[in-house]
């Protein structure tokens, strides 16, 4: 087929997959989503960590945290409900037990952080400042388990701003707030992140959800409610990334139910600069690496020499 838009031939090996997230340059736009890839060593026997654009580790707060009782997860059609409760080894435990392993790789490490209070967020950000081997901080304001009083940092715009201001004042590390999906206007949160001096945003976090065992009439999760992830939430995530991209010039890490390269391309087309693979890693640990190769083939097939030429190219 001949037309003036007919793509020129590009060899997959020659496709430039590198992207920039503010001051960070990544070799490719495929990250792991926080909470789905542990702290790095868990998957290292099965996955070449050098093939990843960046590793985003499971959320860290100031002190070791026990998390929720079990059952903590429940599989639903095309999705996974979880309420792990942010179990983590704390700042010192992470630096002592996991960071030395991660430093052996050239892949940038992004640490997902959270706190019980605004002061704790800032303290965690401060403690990671200047620590060798940490490329950026993703700020988890949207986990359903975190709240100040009755206000969730991820869904209350004023609380969201105060968390970001406190973190921004505490560190020069690149900051990437992770946005909650259950807000009326995602654009307002994207703009607030930009105003607060964030370097990028990531979305979406899990969608609040619940399931019940009708025989026992008990909730499926010990925490009663949890966060839904996996392919079930992908259209929600694509729509919110599209809206956020129109509201801010910050680069966006899009995520939610990415199982293959085609899904990643969807996020890039609606405006994401990078993507993260989450729940899919539990099923197929090599999904992120496969998405990288699949994106390369897709871009070559469309005559695009750089992944950056795909970002925000939704046709109307």
């Amino acid at each position, binding site marked *: 087929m001949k037309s003036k838009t007919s793509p020129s031939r590009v060899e997959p090996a020659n496709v430039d997959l590198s992207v920039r997230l503010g001051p960070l340059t990544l070799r490719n736009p495929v990250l792991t989503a926080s*909470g*789905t*890839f*542990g702290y790095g060593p*868990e*998957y290292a*026997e*099965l996955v070449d960590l050098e093939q990843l654009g960046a590793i985003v580790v*499971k959320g860290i707060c100031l002190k070791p945290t*026990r*998390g929720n*009782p*079990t*059952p*903590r*997860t429940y*599989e639903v*059609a*095309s*999705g*996974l409900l*979880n309420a*792990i409760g942010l*179990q983590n080894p704390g700042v010192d435990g992470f630096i002592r037990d996991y960071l030395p392993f991660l430093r052996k790789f050239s892949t940038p490490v992004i640490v997902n952080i959270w706190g019980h209070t605004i002061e704790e967020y800032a303290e965690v950000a401060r403690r990671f400042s200047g620590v060798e081997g940490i490329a950026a901080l993703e700020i988890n304001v949207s986990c359903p388990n975190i709240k100040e009083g009755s206000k969730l940092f991820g869904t209350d715009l004023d609380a969201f701003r105060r968390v970001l201001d406190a973190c921004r004042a505490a560190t020069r590390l690149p900051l990437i707030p992770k946005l909650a999906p259950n807000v009326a206007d995602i654009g307002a949160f994207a703009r607030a992140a930009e105003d607060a001096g964030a370097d990028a945003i990531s979305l979406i976090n899990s969608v609040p959800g619940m399931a019940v065992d009708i025989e026992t009439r008990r909730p499926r999760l*010990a925490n009663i409610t949890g966060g839904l992830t*996996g*392919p079930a939430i992908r259209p929600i995530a694509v729509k919110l990334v599209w809206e956020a991209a129109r509201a801010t010039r910050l680069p966006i890490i899009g995520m939610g139910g990415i199982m293959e390269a085609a899904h990643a391309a969807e996020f890039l087309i609606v405006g994401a600069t990078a993507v993260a693979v989450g*729940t*899919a*890693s*539990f*099923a*197929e*640990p*090599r999904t992120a690496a496969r998405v990288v190769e699949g994106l390369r083939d897709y871009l070559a097939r469309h005559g695009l020499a750089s992944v950056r030429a795909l970002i925000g190219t939704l046709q109307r």
Partner: protein
Amino acid sequence: MIIEDAAVAGQERRAGGYYLLSLRSPKLAALARPGQFLHVRLPAPADTLLRRPFSIFQAAEGEVRILYKPVGRGTHSMTALQAGDVLSVIGPLGNGFPPPAPGVHPVLVAGGYGMAALYLLAASAPRPGTAFFGGAGAADILCVPEFEALGWKVIIATEDGSLGARGRVTTPLDAWLSASARPRPIEFFACGPNGMLKAVAERAAAAGARAWVSMDRSMGCGVGACLTCVQRVRAPNGEAVWARVCKEGPVFEAGSVVWEEIE
């Protein structure tokens, strides 16, 4: 730990609605240790995301075998597998059973298809011991000939009395333990429901014997990342901490398990 696409070597239906699935995998067969498990991607349905863990029942001649009973949509889809079909398998996973200490008489205690997790241990033990199998009825007592062929004495209990002693597996176990002529010292290796494991832990403590229990939990990733299958255990300093059943387990020394926190 490896991930590979393994071809189905065969599948046969066993009594009681159980299935024996054989996978062709010289690598997994060579790596498998007693008490470890495989994390298997289900062939269907398409909206099923997570893998399912299965104890490695047997590993020999380039094949690994698992024994399962279809309970949900995912495991029902496995019953249609035929020779030549391919399954993605991660394994062998987890910390299995240590070898029985020299000079002890090994005692196996299995509830339902828990004995699947014990066969490799029985096959590799320095000497055969005594195995106690319990189930709801005769149809739930599996693989007795396989264990007897290894020289083990198998003692059976069923709750409906249709085979062996009537009652739980602890009924004949308690009788055996109280016999003055029984072998000493002993060491327990158990797999089954949590209530049974706890009962074995109590008998072991009373007998001054060590017990190793293999815990059956719903799992997510199978490799220690998702923190779904956590269990409270006592660290060496006595503090209660989380252990991941898929990584630090599935086998735990019974004395380290915090039983009161098992729902």
